[in-house]
């Protein structure tokens, strides 16, 4: 990894330690939820709605029930009142949507679970599910999405804001840009399917399910089933990718729990890849109207960003990232607005850089259009408008190293000397173009607790109900404890992903490390105080531990994150620890920032688009492990390539279904799509964001790449594409 500049590091923190669980992951012994073997397991298979809007008229279960091996079939008619109606996270509850699982005959969207078959084998359950005859009444055609009109949109006033006088400034400006952009629906498609296993023992329920928030599942399920939460344990030792899809409670968990209780046996459900497209939320399609005005020397005088997002009829969900795009650059006159369009679709949710990716695509492409009109270098345009104070509320950035990122990445890329005119670079039959964009991601943290145990033999054990999603959580938490107690990392063990452990924040919003590391640090402080060792300076605790004559010292601490409500620590113990920060603080704004540069090649005849080079430089505060951070940033940028060129959940408007609900037709980047992708970590110290100084790198890598690719394609061809994904037909 010679392409990476590692920040200077003295202790264990900051070192590129190998992954804690590496051996388990390369030998197949890492047990994901569906790998856990339970005795006498029955297998479940979902039946999902084939219509987009209407009612269930009847079921004919005769053939399915007659099939050998079939044990039970759950429908809204057979399940009774076992699952209660509970609110979604948007209404203060736990669910990813407000629909009650198998709650009624109403069909709110294609793919909605309408029945679940339980059988002795997976094969029998699948066959029986195919024998379930469902009759629907579908009198009204579904609204499949935004269609061609945004007139049906509903403004979300609390998400809008304005400063100065946009209209006058725009009208009287020297140079303006006025453009519309769109991004498609996308699905996270983690490699691991949405598996759930439930087993009841003596009135206690254990759930094995990949989760970004085990306590959300525990407390949400308790509310749904009317159970004391202490009777539920949720285990998620390893998660096979999540990317936002496994953040909040979905319908399947209660169904599997109820089925397991009904038949008195463990039940295992592994929904198919196609079913996964509606098991959880997704990134909804968006439209954008951006207007920019600037002086001849490039200073922004007016900025307007209005977004439209698809939501479901049941839930009003909007990512509304105008709150960020309007705060990136100095500008005295700003107007921002967010609208939703309710469709007959499943409720959207979170997908890696949920609002940041689409809103950045619009804003960072518009800025490139402005640079072109001004005949100005796109980096120079960002420099002219760089600011240490966000322009909407006048709040300071805790730290902002954007131009250092641009200069670092530009130098590594060889940006200097780029011809400003498009369609002027050629390599044989390939048109070559270079583009760039700003990447940003708000710095979040949530309340978290941790327990650290130091033993007389020098072993340290760390416990947290945080989550290992692939970001390196086990490794980083071991590094934090090793450094704080001055012991070798090999002596540290870490337990994560289990509601029996001290509760932690949802693993979302790039907040895990920034939230759990401070809790571990505080627990280590408590151990040091017990031993009479000063905190905040490097020290080896072992001499004092030996002198103390103690066998073990164990400390449990909880840490409240900046920006959370004073009484919010109680929510930590109710599955309600959500990230705070970013642009939602009264005193400051917190962002990780980056600069991304891309080379594209467009074939002169076939119009094939290739991305031979991507270089990003990122300033994200302290990097606890540059090795795992590098993986996050590079992976994020490859997601950016996917957003720019591949990913699109195609919708059949007749029944508001996904046509390409599989991994052959929903295109994600494969190895051959990716060539040289480099991540440079720019040194940055920020002591304000949280005690660990961590800003988080899980999502920022995705954010600017689609705009940088679109800008590079314009530079290569002179064709401006404002709709994702960019395909051959756009360049004909």
């Amino acid at each position: 990894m010679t392409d990476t500049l590692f920040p200077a590091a003295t202790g264990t923190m900051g070192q590129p330690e190998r992954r804690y669980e590496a051996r388990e992951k390369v030998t197949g012994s890492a047990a994901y939820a569906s790998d856990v073997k339970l005795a006498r397991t029955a297998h479940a298979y979902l039946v999902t709605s084939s219509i987009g809007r209407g009612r269930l008229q009847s079921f004919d279960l005769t053939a399915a029930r007659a099939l050998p091996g079939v044990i039970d079939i759950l429908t809204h008619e057979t399940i009774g009142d076992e699952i209660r109606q509970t609110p979604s996270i948007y209404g203060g509850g736990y669910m990813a949507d407000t629909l009650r699982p198998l709650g009624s005959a109403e069909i709110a969207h294609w793919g909605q679970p309408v029945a679940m078959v339980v059988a002795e084998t997976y094969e029998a359950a699948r066959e029986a599910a195919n024998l379930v005859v469902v009759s629907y009444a579908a009198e009204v055609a579904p609204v499949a999405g935004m269609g061609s009109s945004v007139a049906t949109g509903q403004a979300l006033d609390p998400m809008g804001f304005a400063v100065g006088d946009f209209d006058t400034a725009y009208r009287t400006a020297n140079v303006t840009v006025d453009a519309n952009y769109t991004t498609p629906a996308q699905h996270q498609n983690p490699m691991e399917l949405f598996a759930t296993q439930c087993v009841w023992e003596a009135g206690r329920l254990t759930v094995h399910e990949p989760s970004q928030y085990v306590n959300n599942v525990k407390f949400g399920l308790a509310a749904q089933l009317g159970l004391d939460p202490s009777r539920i344990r949720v285990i998620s030792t390893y998660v096979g990718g999540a990317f936002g899809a496994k953040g909040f409670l979905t319908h399947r968990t209660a169904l599997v729990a109820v089925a397991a209780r009904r038949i008195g046996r463990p039940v295992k459900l592994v929904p198919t890849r196609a079913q996964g497209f509606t098991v959880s939320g997704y990134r909804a399609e968006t439209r954008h109207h951006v207007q920019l005005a600037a002086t001849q020397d490039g200073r922004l005088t007016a900025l307007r960003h209005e977004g439209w997002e698809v939501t479901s009829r049941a839930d009003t969900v909007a990512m509304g990232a105008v709150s960020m795009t309007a705060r990136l650059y100095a500008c005295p006159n700003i107007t921002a607005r967010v609208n939703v369009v309710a469709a007959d679709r499943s409720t959207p949710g979170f997908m890696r850089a949920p609002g940041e990716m689409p809103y950045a695509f619009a804003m960072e492409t518009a800025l490139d259009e402005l640079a072109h009109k001004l005949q100005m270098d796109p980096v120079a345009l960002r420099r002219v408008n760089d600011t240490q104070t966000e322009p909407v509320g006048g709040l300071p950035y805790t730290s902002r190293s954007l131009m250092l990122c641009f200069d670092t990445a530009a130098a590594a890329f060889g940006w200097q000397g780029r011809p400003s005119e498009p369609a002027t670079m050629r390599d044989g039959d390939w048109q070559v173009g270079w583009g760039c964009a700003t990447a940003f991601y708000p710095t979040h943290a949530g309340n978290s607790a941790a327990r650290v145990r130091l033993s007389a033999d020098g072993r340290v054990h760390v416990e947290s109900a945080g989550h290992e999603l692939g970001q390196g959580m086990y490794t980083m938490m071991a590094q934090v404890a090793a450094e704080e107690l001055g012991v070798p990392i090999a002596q540290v063990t870490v337990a994560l992903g289990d509601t029996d452990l001290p509760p932690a924040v949802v693993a979302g919003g790039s907040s895990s490390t920034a939230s759990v590391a401070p809790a571990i640090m505080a627990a280590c402080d408590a151990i040091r105080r017990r031993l009479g060792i000063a905190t905040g300076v490097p020290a080896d605790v072992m001499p004092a531990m030996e002198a103390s004559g103690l066998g073990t010292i164990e400390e449990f601490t909880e840490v409240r994150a900046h920006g959370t409500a004073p009484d919010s620590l109680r929510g930590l113990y109710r599955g309600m620890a959500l990230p705070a920060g970013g642009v939602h603080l009264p005193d400051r704004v917190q962002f990780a920032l980056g600069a991304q540069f891309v080379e594209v090649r467009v074939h002169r005849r076939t119009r094939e688009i290739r991305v031979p080079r991507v270089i990003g430089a990122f300033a994200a505060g302290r990097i606890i492990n540059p090795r795992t951070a590098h993986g996050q940033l590079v992976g994020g940028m490859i997601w950016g390539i996917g957003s720019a060129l591949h990913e699109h959940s195609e919708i059949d408007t007749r029944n508001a279904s996904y046509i390409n609900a599989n991994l052959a037709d929903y295109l994600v980047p494969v190895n051959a799509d990716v060539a040289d992708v480099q991540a440079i970590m720019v040194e940055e110290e920020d002591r304000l964001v949280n005690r660990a100084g961590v800003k988080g790198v899980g999502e920022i890598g995705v954010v600017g790449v689609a705009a940088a690719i679109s800008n590079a394609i314009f530079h290569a061809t002179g064709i401006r594409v404002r709709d994702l994904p960019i395909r051959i037909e756009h360049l004909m």
Partner: protein
Amino acid sequence: MSDSERKTEPVSKRRRNFLIGSAMTGVVPVIGWAGQAQATTQAAPVDARAALNVALRVNGRLHQVQVDARMTLLDALREEIGLTGAKKGCDHGQCGACTVLVDGRRELACLTLAVAAQGREVVTIEGLAAPDGTLHPMQEAFVAQDAFQCGYCTPGQILSAISCVHEGHATSPDQVREYMSGNLCRCAAYPNIVAAVLQASQQMGD
């Protein structure tokens, strides 16, 4: 299955094994051959859904398991034999997470019926490390190059990568990218996977 093993089995099972042998040619659809059996033998009707006894040789060990005729090799490994290293990512041969070695070649265990794997050598991720725990050079390279994040696609990537080297398709970064593109990695650890395959290919001496 050897002749000596076959002799110990009841007659009815022998017939089934013959039919499985036919299915292994890949010409006769699975559902079809049970019907054919009825027509040709005039024996009691065969239940296409009845459990079949099959012997699967996995990582050098013979496993006698009962499987549904429709059960994939992937599900047989995971549900019946207890080897959960091979992963289900799509069940349609689109993602590569279930890749195993069958007779030394990479195959998708989700597109291979368990009955069709009889008499063939199956190697899964659990069979790669030496008995003393020493990792296979490809496993070691994946660790050294940080060629994974969540780890879910990793067993399939590693087995595919070993095959890629044996096939002679690991001579350049571009070639590795092309011949490893059947294995999706949603964490997108691709650059590190390429580095790992190239590192291991030198150590594997192929």
